[in-house]
């Protein structure tokens, strides 16, 4: 579904990504692990063409999308839950969901299903985006991405500021999606929960892939487990 090869990138003069390579198969969950400022979000930006790669390739569903415009890449089936929510403040909750939605009739996600996942949003449907609480904004960002009915969802810190209960639900929901054959790329600070459902993990350090492997291998490696999983 998604193949990233030797990705390189920089902000202005300061290089951030040196060599990032990994892939996500349809129907599997992959996590990007790494400490603050190691380049996870930058990787995501590069994949989506928000920060055109300075090197390497990004292949989505078999098509080389390196350097393509963001809307082309997204249209190829990628859905983004960006870091820091970035919901549209001047649109109502419902407009946030509807404005960029795609294939709601045919696809598996519709307004009702999103409201089903986040009843809270339905209560606040007519509020402006910037009137939402932090967590509500987070829910909205997730719902907004799902409303584009992507084949690969990228969640960058998607559960930040969510109550444990909601987190549980989201993980459960992701599990469901995976089962339905959706591919998922997750960046999250408390990975212990998703360690259970994730298939493979990619550890990024200083803009390079330090380690990748399956969950079992990860749990078998104490130093990495120590570092990235809460025990």
């Amino acid at each position, binding site marked *: 579904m998604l193949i990233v090869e030797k990705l390189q990138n920089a*902000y*202005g*003069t300061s290089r951030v990504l040196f060599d990032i390579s990994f892939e996500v198969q349809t129907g599997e969950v992959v996590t990007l692990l790494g400490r603050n400022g190691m380049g996870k979000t930058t990787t995501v930006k590069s994949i989506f063409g*928000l*920060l055109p790669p300075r090197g390497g390739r990004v292949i989505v569903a078999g098509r080389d999308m390196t350097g393509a415009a963001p809307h082309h890449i997204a249209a190829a089936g990628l859905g983004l839950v960006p870091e820091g929510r970035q919901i549209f403040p001047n649109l109502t909750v419902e407009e946030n969901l509807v404005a960029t939605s795609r294939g709601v009739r045919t696809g598996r996600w519709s307004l009702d299903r999103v409201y089903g996942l986040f009843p809270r949003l339905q209560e606040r449907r007519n509020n402006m985006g910037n009137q939402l609480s932090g967590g509500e904004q987070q829910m909205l960002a997730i719902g907004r991405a799902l409303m584009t009915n992507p084949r690969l969802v990228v969640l960058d810190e998607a559960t930040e500021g969510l109550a444990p209960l909601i987190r549980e639900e989201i993980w459960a929901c992701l599990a469901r999606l995976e089962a339905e054959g959706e591919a998922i790329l997750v960046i999250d600070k408390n990975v212990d929960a998703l360690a259970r459902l994730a298939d493979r993990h990619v550890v990024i350090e200083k803009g390079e892939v330090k380690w990748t492997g399956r969950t079992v291998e990860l749990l078998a490696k104490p130093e990495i487990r120590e570092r990235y999983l809460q025990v």
Partner: protein
Amino acid sequence: MSVAATLSMSRGRLASRTGAAWMIFALLAVTPAVVTLAGDPYLTLTFSRILIFAIAAISLDLVMGYGGLVTLGHAANIGFGAYAVAVLSRHGITDLGLQMLGAIVLAGGFAAVTGAIALRTRAVYFIMITLAFGQMAYFFFVSLSAYGGDDGVALSGRSTIFGSALLESDVVFYYVALALLGLVYLFSLRLVSSRFGRVLTGTREDRLRMQAIGFRPFGYQLLGFAIASCIAAIAGVLLANQTEFVSPAYMSWHRSGELLVMVVLGGMGTLLGGVAGAIVVLLLEEGLSTFSSHWLLGLGVVLLAVVLFSPSGLAGLAQRLVGRGEREGRP
């Protein structure tokens, strides 16, 4: 791109900036000699006009580039300065110092009152409300028949310094203007890096954050607004002397717009940018207008070009020429 971009980097840039400053001021200092040698002493007058607008531009950069308060009423202060000269000299007070004092009182007072109201608003609303106040001042002087209404008044001569008519000499006048420009520049330079300056720029960046750490933005902004207005008024005093004529035309919103263009063109939040902007715009005006009555077309093209090809104005351009080019990654 954020206004602050230039600012935060200033530390690293300071060296290159002071260098540029020395260069510009050195050039300005020798200008009269040069033009006289070039057999064109008249140009001294043209350049003194440039100095005057440079002062005004710096003051605008203070509120706009550092205070984040974009105003379209700044020219009003130039008008206040000019009318201070006209009114006072009609009542026999021709001393430059006193006239400047008057100008400062007038402009400062106006700024304090209007600013207090305008600061309730933000961003574009602030632009427009300052425009409104500027226009009111403008129309007030237009209907002030005692001083010729919009016909303006001719002065009987330039101001005196301690009773002597030194300023009548264009060269002396030029150097007085230059000295004032230097003072204003240094003053502003200190101001923006001072504690006060930091609070001002901090407020521009994020008001709520500033309040959260215990600052009340209003006072600082109002003070900054008033200071800048007073400086602009000084420029007005000089303008009146340079043209020996005073008219409301000095304070119409077009003039404010031109000042704004100078600052943005030169590069906001750099102080020196204002100076550069004034020099470039006015020289272009002088130069182009001799070629054709459609010179505005040329000026327009230049403005466009600068915006498109040099994002942070002439300052940015200079940066890149010096090789210190630093571009902002926008999210």
